[in-house]
């Protein structure tokens, strides 16, 4: 049993980290305080999805978690995705589709899309839409986001076929 701990340890973007925290600090606030500012504060009540991160493979809202609830878990933020110079496929497609306007929702969109692509195979539009249900965008409308997501999914689906001769089956 842990009592009155003031630290929390979890794997953040593949690295084991320990942070000092307080019982009342939200995971979102800890991440931003520690410089992981790609994760955004939107509504603060689990509705808009701007703060979406991946915890143990599932998309969750960092605004509804206390930092200490992450103890021992694996957390991934937008910082684990591509960079300016080397964007991840979903990031390339979002830009190509013109899906990014103010950009505030995009980190959350990317994390939900990543959870979707890592958890599901043969992704139909219906499944994709269900996964993206908890992420709101107030600028571009969703059409361009769908286009980008569909292209990314189709690109990923085409890839193992290309690699198969070398890598064998997955």
């Amino acid at each position: 049993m842990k009592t009155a701990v003031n630290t929390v340890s979890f794997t953040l973007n593949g690295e084991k980290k320990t942070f000092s925290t307080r019982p009342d600090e939200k995971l979102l606030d800890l991440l931003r305080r520690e410089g992981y500012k790609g994760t955004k504060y939107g509504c603060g009540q689990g509705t808009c999805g701007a703060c979406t991160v991946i915890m143990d493979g599932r998309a969750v809202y960092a605004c509804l978690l206390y930092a200490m609830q992450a103890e021992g878990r694996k957390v991934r933020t937008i910082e684990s995705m591509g960079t300016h110079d080397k964007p991840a496929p979903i990031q390339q497609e979002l830009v190509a589709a013109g899906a990014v306007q103010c950009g505030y929702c995009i980190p959350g969109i990317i994390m939900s899309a990543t959870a979707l692509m890592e958890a599901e195979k043969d992704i139909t539009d219906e499944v994709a839409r269900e996964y993206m249900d908890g992420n709101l965008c107030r600028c571009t409308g969703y059409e361009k986001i769908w286009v980008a997501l569909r292209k990314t999914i189709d690109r990923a689906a085409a890839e193992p076929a290309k690699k198969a001769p070398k890598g064998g089956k997955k």
Partner: protein
Amino acid sequence: MRPDLLVKPSSLAGLWKALPSLPRDRRYLAGGTDLMIAAGHGHAGDCWIDISGLKELKAFRETSSSVFIGAGLTIAELAEMTAVKKWLPALALCAPHYASPSLRNMATIGGNAANGSPCADGVCALLSEKAEIVLGLKGAKRKMPLHSFFLAPKRTALKKDELILGFEVPKWRHVSAYEKLGPRSYFGISKVTVCVSAELSAGLVKEAVIACASVAPVPLLARKAAEFLYGRRLDEGTISEAAALAQSETSPITDTRSEAAYRKAMVRVLAVRALSKLPA
């Protein structure tokens, strides 16, 4: 108000042992999706006990006559289970209507009941499936029909420190339909929900349970409507009469989400839809 202390026991035994040493004003934290919002609005205790590490609450057991689901299972985990799809069709059907995917990854079925809200989707589904709720406090366990767990809005039968361990649902060969009316087709708290589970035999109703959410102070069983259906064929006349009975059993109020008169009118509409949708 937020807690000054957050503790995380790793077993039930550890929890019961630690209780006496914790501040008196304490509560359990499961997914946090209700508690966190409540904490933003007012006092939410000095100490929160994170129960997400309790393996006992993640239990899933199946016997020849019943299915037990642990209170700590999330809606997403439940919706993915084959046994849930088979034996708890209403719970599986309600999942897509339950908040959003990220919320379903966090929200637990135990928290949905403990919160005591008449609009809870998981509760509405489980009610229609004749679930019993299993509670534990130190060594003592008790079990009661789920409907009798709810006393008033936000008031349940839980005693201080008592924990919901899970839900026991009898295996019965039923089909279900889940009709939720929210502010939009997905992701919103219900204005009215009607969930029907029924066992049909040669086209006749052998047994039916009708649960309604957001139309009474507590999650409601429309008993008269369900009794009326007994032994009948689900034709248009029967459905219409049963829906009218269900409507008469509700007592909705006007609040931020909807208006009493609209809710009342919609109970009937949703009951007709649900009964008409039941797979033959």
